[in-house]
């Protein structure tokens, strides 16, 4: 290990979007962690946390580590862009994931009940049925575009129904989400990216506003109706806040689950015996999902900044310092997991960090889990094996997400 590090150019470690960082994150983050689990990245101008205990501690320290992307050092970065792209930043700034307490908890508590394991369990039969309708056309179909036909379609339909948004807008929604994702997942400024993000946000808000207004006169048992009722009760949510958080859920509800499903297929292709195990014992779907989340989860990292000085991993973090909490790296830290490069669908314990920890832990986690569990059950039941037909796997260069550009697969029933 020491020899390997000695040959590494330290400046390579500071490039979060280098070819290796994007395409071989396990090795890249292992190298960063070997230098220091709390590493100062000169180029990013902040701390990169890659150790399991350090990432856990940081995620749980919401009192000192802010998620507010529109204040502190991140706010300074955005101030010029936010005056130019007013819809984009006006609505992004209302995302409750990027708010601190007490505002965050108040908004989360409004939608929390809809996303508990108990609540999402109710839709399991419908999700299983939807999955069947997506699996059947892949039988004997030869090579399929797995993301377009399955990994994208499943979560976008589920979240649209859950929110109460017509799913006929889903192709447009995919483009909007891609354009917003380019802004949300990539740091730095690129005029084209910002202009596309502004256009996407404007269109998405125009799409959602009449739907939100309709919930007032035609209430249903969906999430948007719940948020509108909270607004009408005077629970501090303005119409724009309802829309902003609907945008957040449309986006968060499918982008990440899509990547989880696609990345899982890559994991199973490397460990085909695990596919067989699941095929023989579908009761392993829940633990297989946890392992898929750990082994190649859809989220690499989330950013924070220090509201006050603190010590972490033996380093003094100054007020105003940026931090990147890399759960993808923590999920591969031997300090957190025995034999981390083994994809073991029965791994126990498995305290994977893909959903984060603490107050900002992914709201949609129970829904994502349910979708993945049912997808794995249905796919392994139907198909004895599969081949990934990409010559090389290519990933979108982002700091935050682990996102394949495309994934073509041929499924075999025997």
């Amino acid at each position, binding site marked *: 290990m020491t020899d390997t590090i000695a040959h590494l150019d330290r400046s390579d470690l500071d490039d979060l979007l280098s070819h290796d960082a994007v395409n071989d994150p396990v090795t890249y983050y292992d190298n960063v962690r070997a230098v220091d689990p709390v590493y100062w990245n000169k180029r990013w101008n902040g701390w990169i946390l890659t150790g399991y205990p350090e990432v856990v501690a940081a995620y749980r*320290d919401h009192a000192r580590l802010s998620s507010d992307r529109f204040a502190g050092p991140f706010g300074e970065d955005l101030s010029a862009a936010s005056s130019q792209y007013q819809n984009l930043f006006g609505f992004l700034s209302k995302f409750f994931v990027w708010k601190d307490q007490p505002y965050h*908890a108040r908004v989360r508590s409004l939608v*929390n009940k809809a996303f508990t394991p108990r609540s999402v369990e109710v839709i399991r039969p419908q999700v299983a049925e939807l999955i069947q309708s997506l699996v059947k056309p892949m039988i004997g179909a030869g090579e399929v575009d797995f993301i377009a036909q399955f990994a994208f379609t499943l979560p976008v339909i589920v979240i649209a129904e859950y929110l109460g948004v017509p799913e006929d807008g889903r192709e447009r929604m995919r483009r909007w989400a891609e354009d917003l994702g380019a802004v949300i997942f990539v740091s730095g400024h690129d005029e084209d990216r910002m202009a596309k993000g502004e256009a996407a946000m404007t269109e998405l808000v125009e799409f959602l506003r009449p739907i939100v207004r309709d919930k007032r006169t035609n209430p249903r048992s969906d999430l948007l109706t719940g948020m509108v009722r909270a607004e009408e009760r005077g629970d501090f949510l303005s119409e724009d806040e309802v829309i902003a958080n609907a945008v957040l859920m449309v986006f968060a509800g499918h982008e990440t689950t899509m990547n989880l499903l696609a990345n899982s297929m890559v994991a199973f292709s490397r460990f085909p015996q695990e596919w067989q195990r699941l095929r023989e014992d579908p009761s392993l779907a829940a633990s297989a999902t946890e392992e898929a989340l750990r082994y190649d989860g859809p989220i690499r990292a989330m950013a924070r900044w220090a509201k006050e000085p603190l010590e972490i991993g033996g380093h003094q973090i100054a007020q105003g310092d940026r931090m990147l909490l890399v759960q993808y790296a923590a999920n591969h830290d031997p300090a957190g997991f025995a034999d981390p490069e083994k994809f073991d669908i029965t791994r126990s*314990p498995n305290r994977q960090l893909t*959903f984060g920890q*603490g107050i900002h832990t992914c709201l949609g986690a129970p829904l994502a889990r349910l979708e993945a569990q049912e997808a794995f059950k249905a796919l392994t039941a139907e198909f004895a094996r599969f081949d990934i037909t990409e010559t090389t796997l290519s990933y979108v260069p982002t700091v935050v997400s682990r996102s394949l550009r495309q994934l073509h697969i041929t499924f075999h029933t025997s």
Partner: protein
Amino acid sequence: MSARVSHDRCVGIGMCALSCPGGFEFDDAGLSVFQPAGTWTSAELLEAADSCPTSAIDVFSNGGKLR
């Protein structure tokens, strides 16, 4: 009535402390701990269990598990 928070499942989201402010406090690791001597009602305790995003809270009464 009594409750127990599983630290295998708790990840410190804190919804329990909103539903039942007198019943839960957070330890040094940021995980929730039930406060038997705190000020809480049975309804609040059940609401905390039902609101938990990781189903980490078990509620008991007279030895039987309610949640």
